[in-house]
C-alpha cells in the first residue's frame, strides 16, 4: 500500500486529509506581521563584521560566529552568520554571492539557441529543468508549438532528472547527518541514472538537451530497455533507504521537530517546492498549473504534516517513487513523431542534409552563428523543479539575443526561510536544516 493514498489531493490546495485548512488572508497577514517584527533575521552588514565593528547582539551571552563559505556542510558556498547563545541559534543571516557568475549578463550575450548552455549551469543538480523553463519561455515568445514526441521526451528527461536530483539530496542529507554510507548508496543509484542521461544527451551533467523548438536529438535505440532496467533497479534500493534511514530512531530524533515552518510563513516568504509541501499545503505546478503533458499522467502530490526536516526528507523520497510512476506511464504512451519543431526559422536542418544542399548549409550556418530572431515582447514561464517553482522571465527586442533574461531560482527565494527555520535550533540542527532546504548555490547566485 503506498503511503500516499491518504495524502491524495483534490482540487483545492488547502484541502488535506485532516480537513479543510483554508488559508485565510488574515492568517497570512499575521505571519507577515510576525516576520517583519520578530526578526529571526540578523541584520548585519558584512562590512561591519569584516572591520570588527562592535555589533549589537541580543544579550551579553550571545556571540556571532560565521559558518562557511568553505564548509563541508553548506551545500556549496553558502555563508551563514549565526548569533548564538551557547549552542542555541537566535538569529542568523545567510550571505550569498560567493558563486555569482553574471549568468543573467551572459544570457544577454548569447543567442537564444546558446542560452540553454548558460541556464543549465545555474541549477547544476537538475539542469534539464532550467533548460526547460528557458525553452518554454522562448517558445512562448515565438508563439510556436512543440511536437508531441518532443513534449513527452522532455517529460521523460525531466522526471529522470528529478530522480537524480532527489538521489543527490538523499546522499548529501545522509552524509550531513552522519549516515555516511548513504552518500555511497545515493551516488550508486545516481550514477545509473546519469548513465541513461549520458546515453541520451551525451553528457552526464549540464546537458544542453532541451532547446527552444524541442530537444536536441531523438532518443537512442534501446532506450526503453534502459529505462525499464533503471525502473526495476531503483525501487528496491529505495526500500533499502527506508531500512537504513526512515525507521531508524537516530534519524528520526535528528530530523523530527527540527526546522519547523508553517504554511503562512512560507506563503509570506514566497517559498515553493518540498518546503511548502512539507507544511501540508499541496501546491505542485505539475498538477495545478500543468505544463508539457502533466495533465495526462497520473501522479500524487506528496505533502507532509509537520513542516519539519523529516517531512521534507520523506517528501523527496516519495517523490522519487512518484517520478518512477510517471516514467512508467511515459514509457507506455510515448508518441511517435518529430523530436523538434520543423519550423525552418527556429530549427536547423538535419545534419545529413548539410553535405547535400547549399541551402541547408547556409541555413545551419545562420542559425548557429547569428541565431534566430524572436519578436519583441516579454514572457514568464515556470516549471516545478525539485526545489520549487523555477521560472524564466525574458524580455526580447526583436534581435537574436535576449534583451534581459532573468531566472527565478527557487533556492534563492527558499533560502529566506533559513533564519526562520534555524531560530531556536541548536548548531547541530543547523546542518540538518540547511540540508533539508536543499539549496543549490548556482541558482541562488546565478
Amino acid at each position, binding site marked *: 500500500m503506498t503511503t500516499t493514498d491518504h495524502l491524495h489531493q483534490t482540487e483545492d490546495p488547502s484541502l488535506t486529509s485532516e480537513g479543510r485548512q483554508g488559508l485565510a488572508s488574515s492568517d497570512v497577514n499575521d505571519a*507577515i506581521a510576525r516576520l517583519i517584527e520578530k526578526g529571526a533575521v540578523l541584520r548585519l552588514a558584512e562590512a561591519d563584521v569584516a572591520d570588527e565593528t562592535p555589533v549589537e547582539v541580543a544579550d551579553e551571552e550571545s556571540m556571532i560566529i560565521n559558518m562557511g563559505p568553505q564548509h563541508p556542510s553548506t551545500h556549496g558556498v553558502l555563508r551563514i552568520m549565526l548569533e548564538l547563545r551557547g549552542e542555541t541559534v537566535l538569529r542568523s543571516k545567510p550571505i550569498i*554571492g560567493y558563486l555569482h557568475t553574471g549568468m543573467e549578463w551572459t544570457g544577454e550575450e548569447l543567442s537564444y539557441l546558446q542560452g540553454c548552455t548558460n541556464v543549465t549551469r545555474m541549477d547544476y543538480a537538475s539542469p534539464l529543468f532550467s533548460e526547460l523553463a528557458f525553452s518554454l519561455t522562448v517558445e512562448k515568445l515565438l508563439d510556436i508549438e512543440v511536437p508531441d514526441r518532443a513534449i513527452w521526451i522532455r517529460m521523460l528527461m525531466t522526471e529522470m532528472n528529478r530522480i537524480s536530483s532527489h538521489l543527490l539530496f538523499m546522499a548529501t542529507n545522509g552524509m550531513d547527518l552522519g549516515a555516511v554510507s548513504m552518500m555511497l548508496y545515493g551516488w550508486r543509484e545516481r550514477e545509473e541514472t546519469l548513465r541513461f542521461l549520458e546515453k541520451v544527451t551525451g553528457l552526464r551533467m549540464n546537458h544542453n538537451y532541451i532547446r527552444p523548438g524541442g530537444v536536441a536529438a531523438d532518443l537512442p535505440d534501446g532506450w526503453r530497455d534502459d529505462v525499464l532496467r533503471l525502473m526495476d533497479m531503483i525501487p528496491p534500493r529505495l526500500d533499502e533507504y527506508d531500512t537504513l534511514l526512515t525507521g531508524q530512531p537516530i534519524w528520526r530524533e535528528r530530523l523530527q521537530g527540527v526546522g519547523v515552518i508553517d504554511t503562512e510563513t512560507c506563503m509570506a516568504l514566497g517559498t515553493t517546492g518540498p518546503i511548502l509541501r512539507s507544511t501540508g499545503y499541496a501546491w505542485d505546478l505539475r498538477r495545478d*498549473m500543468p505544463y508539457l503533458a502533466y495533465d495526462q499522467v497520473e501522479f500524487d502530490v506528496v505533502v507532509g504534516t509537520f513542516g519539519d526536516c523529516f517531512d521534507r526528507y520523506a517528501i523527496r523520497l516519495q517523490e522519487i517513487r512518484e517520478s518512477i510512476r510517471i516514467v512508467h506511464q511515459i514509457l507506455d504512451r510515448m508518441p511517435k513523431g518529430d523530436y523538434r519543431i520543423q519550423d525552418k526559422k527556429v530549427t536547423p536542418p538535419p545534419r545529413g542534409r548539410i553535405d547535400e544542399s547549399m541551402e541547408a548549409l547556409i541555413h545551419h550556418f545562420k542559425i548557429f552563428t547569428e541565431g534566430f530572431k524572436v519578436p519583441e515582447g516579454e514572457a514568464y*514561464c515556470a516549471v516545478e523543479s525539485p526545489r520549487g517553482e523555477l521560472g524564466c522571465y525574458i524580455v526580447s*527586442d526583436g534581435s537574436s539575443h535576449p534583451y534581459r533574461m532573468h531566472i527565478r531560482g527557487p533556492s534563492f527565494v527558499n533560502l529566506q526561510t533559513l533564519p526562520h527555520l534555524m531560530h531556536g535550533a541548536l548548531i547541530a540542527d543547523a546542518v540538518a536544516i540547511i540540508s533539508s532546504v536543499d539549496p543549490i548555490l548556482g541558482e541562488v547566485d546565478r
Partner: protein
Amino acid sequence: MSDTSPTDGADEVAEPTEHAAEPDLVHGIAASWSHGQRVVHPSRAELVALVKTMHDDGYMMCLDLCGADYLDHPGRTLPEGIAPERFEVVVTLISHREASRVRLRVQVPESDPVVPSLFGVHPGTDAMEREVFDMFGIVFEGHPDLTRILMPEDWVGHPLRKDYDSGRIPVQFKGAPSR
C-alpha cells in the same frame, strides 16, 4: 481542450478580443495581455496599494521581483498613458485558488530610481529587492537592509545596467608563454 495540445506552464487565459472600446483596467490601473499572461502597469505610487489589494484578492504569494534596464531597447509596447522610463521593476504574483499569475511592471525613471519596497506586504521580497538594488541601483524605500547581496559589498557600479562595462578580458592564447 484537446488532449494533444501542449500546455506550457504559463497561465493561458482567454484573451479578450475587444480592446478598442474601453481601456483595459485592473483595479483602476492600466493593464494589458502579453502572450496570454496578464500584465498590469502601476506607477510607483500605486504599487504597494495595488499589491495589497491583490493580496486580499487571493494573489497571496510574490514569486519574483526583478529589474530590467531598457536603455538600448528599440521600443516596447505599453498601454496608453504609461510613459516608458529607463528602468522597470517587474513583480510576479500568483493566486493559488485561481491558479494564475499576474505581472506588474513599474516604470522607474533614471533620474530618481526609487521605488517603495514591498517588504511590508511580502517579506519574501527581501532578497529579491536587494538583488535588484545590487544589479541595477534601484533603491527600495522601506526595505530593512538594502545592501549588496551578490557582489562584494564594496563593489562599485551596478553590473546589469546596459552602460556597465562587461569586464571581459581580451583573451589571446598565442602570446602566452609556455612552461
